[in-house]
């Protein structure tokens, strides 16, 4: 009887369920899938808005081939890998270390944590401008401080290598607090009795961390890694205000390249193709992390 009633209810409720879900479904389709599908169509069209108001026609995979063969595009990929790889690596290490260092619920620790997360709430474009001033070769605070300990500071924004380091520094400074927040919450949720048992068994602090805490933290840390990788790869405003992709093409990232192609040069076909390559690139990186996550920790 109960089963019969449930089935009857389900059948009876089905139109209502559809009616309630359909609007949300259509909105998702409209705002998410339509632009994606449209960009897929654009990526196989020849269309520069400055030459024509409408696409000039189907060109197959030409846009993809051209982009992949373009030296500036390839350099943008390399720069993105360096910047995202370097920054996210530092953020994960520093974030976890800081989370351990600022554990506790005393007012001092709470105050320290609040101070540490401040960079995260600054608008990236403002952070870029701020760091541009800090990294000034002649009058910047950083080189002044280095000078106090007898080190001649580099030309942060004028040298290709140091400009990359500058972008990594900015990203690390701004987003380490995010890792700190997530790692702090994860550490606080580790059951205390597990740690007690380890201590009773004579495990050192390092071994407790390595064999008990780290495996428990890993799923959340990997998720944080995915968030940070995506965010870092997509970052445009901080680079725009810090280096504007320069000097030369030294800090031209994939996002900056796509922005230039699409919104400054109005080459929609090329920008759409680059975006799809970017999406494949980002998806591969994220898939790699998820594959890593599936491993038994």
């Amino acid at each position: 009887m109960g089963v019969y009633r449930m089935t009857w209810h389900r059948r009876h409720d089905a139109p209502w369920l559809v009616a309630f879900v359909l609007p949300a479904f259509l909105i998702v389709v409209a705002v998410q899938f339509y632009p994606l599908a449209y960009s897929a169509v654009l990526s196989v069209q020849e269309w520069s808005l400055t030459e024509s108001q409408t696409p000039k026609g189907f060109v197959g995979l030409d846009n993809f081939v051209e982009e992949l063969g373009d030296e500036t595009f390839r350099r943008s990929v390399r720069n993105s890998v360096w910047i995202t790889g370097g920054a996210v690596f530092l953020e994960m290490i520093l974030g976890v270390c800081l989370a351990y260092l600022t554990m506790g619920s005393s007012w001092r620790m709470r105050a320290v944590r609040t101070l540490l997360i401040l960079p995260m709430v600054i608008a990236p474009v403002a952070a870029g401008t701020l760091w541009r001033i800090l990294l000034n070769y002649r009058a910047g605070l950083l080189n002044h401080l280095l000078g106090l300990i007898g080190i001649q500071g580099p030309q942060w924004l004028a040298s290709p290598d140091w400009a990359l380091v500058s972008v990594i520094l900015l990203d690390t400074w701004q987003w380490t607090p995010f890792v700190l927040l997530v790692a702090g919450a994860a550490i606080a949720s580790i059951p205390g009795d597990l740690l007690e048992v380890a201590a009773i068994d004579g495990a050192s602090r390092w071994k407790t961390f390595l064999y008990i805490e780290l495996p428990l933290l890993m799923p959340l840390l990997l998720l944080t890694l995915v968030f940070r990788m995506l965010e870092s790869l997509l970052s445009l405003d901080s680079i725009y205000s810090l280096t504007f992709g320069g000097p030369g093409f030294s800090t031209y990232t994939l996002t900056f390249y796509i922005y230039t192609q699409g919104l400054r040069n109005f080459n929609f076909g090329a920008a759409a193709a680059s975006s799809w390559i970017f999406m494949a690139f980002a998806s591969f990186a994220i898939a790699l992390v998820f594959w890593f996550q599936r491993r038994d920790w």
Partner: protein
Amino acid sequence: MKKVLLFLCIIALLPLGSALAQDMPHAGAEIVATYMQSGTYDIGAENIEAAFEEATGIEIELVASPWAVLNQNHITDLTTGTGEFDVMSGEFWIASVWDKMLPLEDFVERDEYGGDFIPTIWQPGPSGHYDGKRIGIPYSADAYGIVYRTDIFEEAGLSADWETWDDYIATLDALAMHLEGTDISPSVFSWGASEQTPMIFLGMYDGYLVDADGNYALDEAPALDSLNKMAGLLDYNPEGAAGLSIDEANSVFLTGNAATMICWVSFMRAAAQNPDSSLIVDNWAVASFPGPGFPFISAWNLFISEYSEEPEAAWEWVKFYINSEQATQRFVELGVGSPYLSTYEDPELMEAYSHDFPGMVDNLSRAQSVPWVFEAFEIFFRNTSELVIGSISAEEALANTLAGWSEVTVPPALVQSAAAQGQQQDM
């Protein structure tokens, strides 16, 4: 009740009646005008907005946006035919959509407008033209220049009367000897603002920018010579100059740490004469920009969109904003270079700006715009920047530029502009 309604109608129609009575043929029209959010051109427009509305009865909305956004808005609006903006501020960077701008010949002739501009500024290039017809009216004029320290030159027994870049470099050599042992460098430039480096190149380069077939091109031998010479100038700059932004380079000069500076004069003019921001008040002057190339000009134009539903009202705004009185006022109050000769012939201003006007007028009289769309410009300045920081050679910078340019189409308006300014290869 009827009486109340009638009374309300009369009240509502009063402004219109009053406008008609005051000879306001376009009263009630609504227009939108764009400006770059620069704190100068846009402020100049805001300052006269109320007076314009009062004088004409036309309601105007001013939209100020950062440079990149402004250009994006214009190109999108015109290519899609949206017609959101009636009057548009722009330069040759949006030449790809110049075919969507309204020809202004009839307005100019009807109102006998435009006879008092600096002749070169009123010509195709600095003034927007398409298909041989005027589409833009220039409202600013700023030419690249070299400013120098009059006190140091006097001490060193030097004069700033260089004609070519070789003369200027010879002066820098003499300055280097004179300034040895001091913290003052012979020259400073905003090398870190890489989009500025082509301005030096253009001053040095004596060749074409568009070939006979209407494609982007450079005459290779003089281009290589100019690229090498341009990169060599960095040696006369202070340590770390390769990363200097425009503000930072200005600061080096204003704090007395450079004897000359290659720059936009309008970006430093007001600060240089302000004792709060400058240590060189009354000790600097503008020199002629050396050749054989030309000083690059920034000449902002007002255009009227062909999609405007109120072209007459839009033209009223153009005339109200661009005239010699307003241009002189913007020069005095906001430091915006005037495209009118009368500004530079004003006796009071000539006295106040005796260190500035002779060089400025000389530079403006020789200044030219370039036929580059932004994509072409970016390809060039990124590669010259790579050259300046030593990542590539002049040969590679040139080869990369030409390879990149081969993919970029020159809009017809800019081929015409290049031809009018003598920048196209002979047939």
